[in-house]
């Protein structure tokens, strides 16, 4: 099993959850245990697109209840006799191994997953990934006093969160939020118009630093006038990064 594995360093681990709870894309080699007509393989795979039921396998850390997962796309890359190479974009927590087994049953011949490679995890794409040699070299160069490779290989957490809509807050609101205070609507400077009730957002400073992860309680137009517009889920920034400042207006 190879492919995209996002790594969060030290304090960036505070922001891991939304990175984990993101769609994934895989290239998977499925091996059928019998011969099936190519057209039938493609047709059945097409039927697996959409919502499917899955129950986590025995060796799993999650609760073993049947749950719905969405297969956004399955695309056959190549079929060679009993080997089917496919690309799939799926909900987080989708078991590709189980999917292959189920496709096998649907085809009447049984099948297993021979090989799996993760090509995308949220915004982390294999096209912009680094391998272990790159990482090792960056660490080695850094020890020698050359920061440049490390700055290239290690990206700021803000970059990983850039797809999430932002709520920009005033400087005076930053430290209180870092210390666990609720954010007040009057402390908001700018709001991404994509924000609706329930949207996962990044609370950020004017300079673009990630302060916290939050869920919006209202559509964007109603946030600034509300006493408690957001539900802060996880503070990312350390208290004391911004000073205590008088007032906020």
């Amino acid at each position, binding site marked *: 099993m190879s492919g995209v594995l996002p790594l969060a360093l030290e304090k960036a681990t505070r922001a891991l959850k939304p990175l984990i709870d993101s769609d994934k894309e895989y290239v998977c080699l499925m091996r059928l245990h019998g011969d099936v007509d190519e057209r039938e393989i493609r047709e059945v795979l097409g039927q697996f697109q959409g919502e499917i039921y899955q129950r986590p396998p025995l*060796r799993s850390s999650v609760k073993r209840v049947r749950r719905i997962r969405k297969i956004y796309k399955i695309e056959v890359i190549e079929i060679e006799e009993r080997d089917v190479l496919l690309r799939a974009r799926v909900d987080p927590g989708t078991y590709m191994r189980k999917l292959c087994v189920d496709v096998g049953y649907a085809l009447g011949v049984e099948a297993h997953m021979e090989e799996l490679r993760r090509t995308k995890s949220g915004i982390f*794409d294999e096209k912009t990934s680094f391998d272990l040699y790159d990482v090792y070299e960056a660490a080695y160069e850094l020890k020698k006093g050359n920061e440049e490779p490390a700055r290239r290989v290690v990206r700021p957490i803000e970059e990983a969160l850039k797809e999430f809509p932002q709520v*920009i807050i005033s400087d005076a609101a930053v430290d209180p939020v870092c210390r666990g205070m609720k954010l007040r609507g009057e402390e908001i400077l700018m709001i991404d118009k994509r924000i609706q009730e329930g949207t996962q957002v990044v609370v950020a400073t004017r300079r673009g630093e990630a302060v916290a992860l939050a869920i919006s309680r209202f559509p964007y137009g109603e946030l600034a006038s509300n006493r408690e517009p957001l539900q802060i889920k996880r503070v990312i920034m350390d208290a004391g990064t911004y000073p205590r400042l008088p007032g906020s207006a």
Partner: protein
Amino acid sequence: MDFLVVREEKGEETYGEDPWHRDIKRHLSFGVINLDKPSGPGSHEVAAWVKRMFGLSKVGHGGTLEARSGEIQPCPACFPLRWKRLPGR
């Protein structure tokens, strides 16, 4: 990205830092790596290597790529790094 501007911030002072130009220690402290993991070592193992390479206090990974099952296990609780030697491995 379309923003609703509620109000402008008055005042000249700038606090904090530009995320793209942090000093190197802080850059690592709030950093992420888009790693292309080779098959072979497990996700926990690789995270442990990176932690050691940079001399960090912790490194978390965004969902294991484990050879055994092909299943994705979210692992925010893997700090400090603990290997999960799953049965039958």
